[in-house]
């Protein structure tokens, strides 16, 4: 292919990626602000006014709602960050790490809603743990206080924290490779510091800035999550996003201004939260630095029990859901169902097939497209060849769909789709899925792209290969394992999307997640368990495919071997030999 054709191809691909991945932000934000300022044609309001905000601030319990939301998001993010670091410190150079790599993917694959439903089964007053206690303690009755739907949102906080730690661990793996832990440890220990001190004083201040965007994502998610809060969160009052969701769907349509004002409030809270996190990071790492250089004090922490807790809860969820799906009679305090039945599976089976098909199709298409666009944008930003447009795309812009509250953006997008007067629901839903999945894939590929040695590309180009060919023959095989895992991550994110499918699909598109949340509200635990189970197994299935494919392709990724095949020297040697061979073949 001639270079001009390649350049044109590159520019077109870049523009398409930008359009599909960033365009929905425009109607999203515009629609949101316009509705919040009172211009809602839907209820014949054509004048700008602040009634929405007035009604919002008059609502009793708003301050409590805001406090709860901030408490949950800050609490779960900070605790998840600390928990993640503690686990890294305890397990990084431990043989347990290898096993962790295996476990991490299925734990990550477990969707939030399924985890929430399983968490509720475990920890509710008539849940599994209570029933086990009732077996051993006489006269044990269901307690009057519950972790589920409790008024202080502790259950929600705990569940979010336990679910986010594996995500942060996953993101840390690629980052820690850049930090050269081995050398740091050797130097530190040779200077007389203990392993814990090296981790806390040297590695932590480097790790925290690098994991910043993942922390932002975690914080934004826990602030704006609706489906998990519906299952586990407080009800009097609920957290802010659940409140906005309820107003959005109220039969009394006069609550629409209040709902849009609430969505703007959510956006403002999100920005405030991210700024707060950044300030905390700055405070501990840059400003208040003397703890890093003064003394040999290190907090004695051990991460293995925490890891054990996370693994055991995540793994016990699936068998528990399985048991519930076959239970005909299972009342408290029996710890096993008294009567089993297949009828729930039988009655759901025909319908399940359709739902699984639509979920899988949407997930495959949106994840694959998002992967393609993520690769295009990564190449543009971090690639070796000259970019088509001399403008780097800022990371913050890329991550906005992940950081902004989904409800706020979808509000505006829904208004825009209604104005177009078409019924292309599937198109809107898939576009929204690509839009929301893209940042996750981008973030997952960020580490591998940065740690790729650009000299390899330079060698290939200097030996006469075209940029496209160099990418395909050299860079792609090295990055393929990471690409497979990012693809699986994208699929699992798409499978668990709730609000985009519900709002833009007009309720006509049923996926496993929409069904699981709808049935969790119906409280027939057997049916809820079936959908939650299937919702969990589908991402695990794709993760397994990705892991197998990544093991087979590319170089074997191992994190603890210093003289691994991935050492830059070895790669350089191997690939330059390969390039030479290829260029010889070309010239012949």
């Amino acid at each position: 292919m001639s270079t001009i054709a390649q350049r044109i191809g590159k520019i077109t691909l870049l523009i398409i990626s930008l359009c599909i991945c960033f365009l929905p932000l425009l109607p999203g934000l515009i629609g949101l602000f316009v509705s919040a300022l009172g211009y809602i044609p839907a209820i014949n309001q054509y004048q700008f006014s602040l009634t929405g905000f007035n009604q919002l601030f008059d609502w009793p319990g708003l301050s409590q709602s805001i406090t709860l939301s901030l408490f949950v998001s800050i609490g779960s993010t900070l605790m998840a960050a600390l928990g993640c670091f503690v686990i890294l410190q305890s397990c990084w150079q431990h043989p347990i790490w290898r096993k962790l790599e295996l476990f991490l993917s299925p734990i990550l694959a477990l969707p939030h809603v399924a985890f929430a439903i399983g968490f509720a089964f475990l920890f509710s007053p008539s849940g599994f743990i209570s029933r086990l206690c009732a077996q051993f303690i006489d006269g044990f009755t269901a307690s009057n206080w519950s972790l589920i739907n409790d008024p202080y949102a502790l259950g929600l906080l705990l569940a979010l924290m336990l679910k986010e730690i594996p995500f942060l661990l996953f993101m840390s793996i690629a980052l820690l490779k850049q930090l050269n832990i081995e050398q740091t440890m050797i130097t530190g220990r040779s200077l007389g510091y203990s392993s814990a001190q090296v981790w806390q004083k040297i590695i932590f201040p480097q790790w925290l800035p690098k994991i910043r965007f993942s922390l932002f994502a975690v914080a934004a998610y826990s602030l704006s999550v609706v489906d998990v809060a519906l299952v586990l969160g407080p009800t009097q009052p609920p957290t802010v996003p659940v409140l906005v969701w309820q107003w959005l769907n109220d039969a009394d349509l006069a609550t629409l201004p209040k709902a849009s004002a609430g969505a703007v409030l959510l956006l403002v809270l999100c920005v405030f939260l991210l700024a707060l996190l950044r300030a905390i990071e700055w405070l501990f790492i840059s400003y208040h630095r003397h703890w890093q250089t003064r003394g040999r004090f290190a907090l004695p922490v051990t991460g293995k029990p925490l890891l054990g807790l996370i693994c055991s809860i995540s793994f016990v969820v699936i068998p528990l859901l399985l048991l519930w799906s076959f239970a005909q009679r299972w009342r408290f305090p029996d710890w096993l169902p008294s009567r089993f039945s297949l009828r729930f599976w039988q009655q759901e089976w025909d319908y399940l097939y359709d739902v699984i098909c639509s979920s899988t199709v949407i997930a495959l298409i949106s994840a694959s497209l998002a992967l393609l666009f993520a690769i295009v944008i990564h190449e543009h930003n971090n690639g070796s060849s000259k970019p088509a447009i001399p403008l780097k795309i800022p990371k913050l812009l890329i991550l906005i769909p992940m950081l902004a509250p989904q409800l706020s953006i979808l509000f505006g997008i829904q208004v825009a789709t209604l104005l177009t007067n078409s019924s292309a629901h599937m198109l809107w839903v898939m576009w929204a899925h690509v839009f929301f999945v893209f940042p996750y894939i981008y973030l997952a590929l960020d580490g591998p792209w940065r740690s790729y040695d650009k000299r390899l590309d330079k060698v290939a180009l200097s030996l006469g290969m075209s940029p496209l060919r160099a990418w395909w023959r050299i860079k792609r095989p090295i990055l393929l394992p990471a690409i497979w895992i990012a693809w699986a991550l994208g699929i699992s994110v798409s499978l668990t999307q709730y609000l985009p499918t519900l709002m833009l699909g007009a309720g006509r598109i049923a996926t496993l997640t929409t069904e699981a949340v709808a049935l969790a509200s119906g409280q027939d635990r057997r049916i809820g368990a079936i959908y939650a189970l299937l919702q969990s197994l589908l991402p695990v299935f794709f993760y397994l495919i990705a892991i197998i494919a990544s093991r087979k392709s590319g170089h074997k990724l191992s994190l603890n071997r210093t003289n691994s095949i991935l050492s830059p020297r070895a790669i350089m040697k191997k690939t330059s030999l390969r390039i030479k061979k290829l260029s010889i073949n070309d010239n012949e």
Partner: protein
Amino acid sequence: MLKHIGFLVLLLVSTLAQAASNDSDKQSNSPLQYSEKQWQKITNKAKGQTVYFYAWGGSQQINNYLRWADKRLNEAYGVRLKHVKVTDISEAISRLVAEKTAKKDNNGSVDMVWVNGENFKSMKKYDLITDSFAKKLPSWRYVDTSLPVENDFSEPTLGLEAPWGVGQLIFIYDKANGRTPPRSFTEMLSYAQANPYKITYPQPPAFHGTSFLKSALLELTTDKNALYQAVDKTDFQAVTAPLWQYLDQLHPLTWRQGKQFPKSSAETNQLLDDGEIDLAISFNPNEVIRAQNSGELAATTEAYALDAGALSNIHFLSIPWNASAKEGALVAIDFLLSPEAQSRKGDLKTWGDPTVLQSEFISGSAKQTKLFKSVSEPHPSWQSALEAEWQKRYGH
């Protein structure tokens, strides 16, 4: 020979004419009904259409019944019925309002809704339903017009919605725990004082929670007539003061001391089964039989209504003005009003929803449905007023 044939033909024609005139005697609105030809045109146009039916999806029994209806409609008329599960029908109403504003007057996304009360009033107010179709349907002749099928929470339906079933607010208790259940709200307070943390109700604005409040208000208020007028014509605070005083006393004794309420009536079933509370609530008089059959409740549970009577209403089906499958929706509603569908709906093992048809047309276990003494629903405007006030006082 010809004479015999002629006589037979005459006999045939006269019997047909007799039958036709009998039919028209049974129908109360024969001039308004769809003629044979019109109905034939409608069924022809409906063939191949997919009707998107927005209805509450929180009960698997209802979902199964609708799947059965989909199968039968497909067999008999070639119409597909897709159940769009919503947590509250107001989700569909907000969508319809948005479509109305966007001037989307055909090819709407909602073809059929399951609606009543405040939601119906909302739809009427925003002109979301304009076609008075209910009495024109062929199945209307089976409907038991002695039931209040033409008034929805004292708002006249004007044929804009077709009745589907009867709801009665009943309570469920477990005979095995040995305590006699309360038969009035005052008794409920003393029951809660004697057995703390065993009573609760779903959190308003969930439908059953608001109905609990309405039921309590009907018993406790001094001015019952005010409840059947629009709320803005009355002194809301004065009429409802006894209710709030009652709840102020009751809440500290409820499950979770009033800091948390169950989210739905189905959750009350589960709490009753796990022994956390003593009374579950439902709008289906046959809920106990259905739940025992599906294994949600123990065999010792029983349903009852309060001595004053059960808050009763009819729930309806309606078609939005911009439905894309209007003929399909008409055919679907007509089928759901037929004796076959209503008998199956009332079958105690599947759903058990009481029928709106005259009992001679019902077959099977649905015939055994016994309705409790009924109390009519207040004016729909009271619903949102009560929910807003409850929210203000107890929502946080």
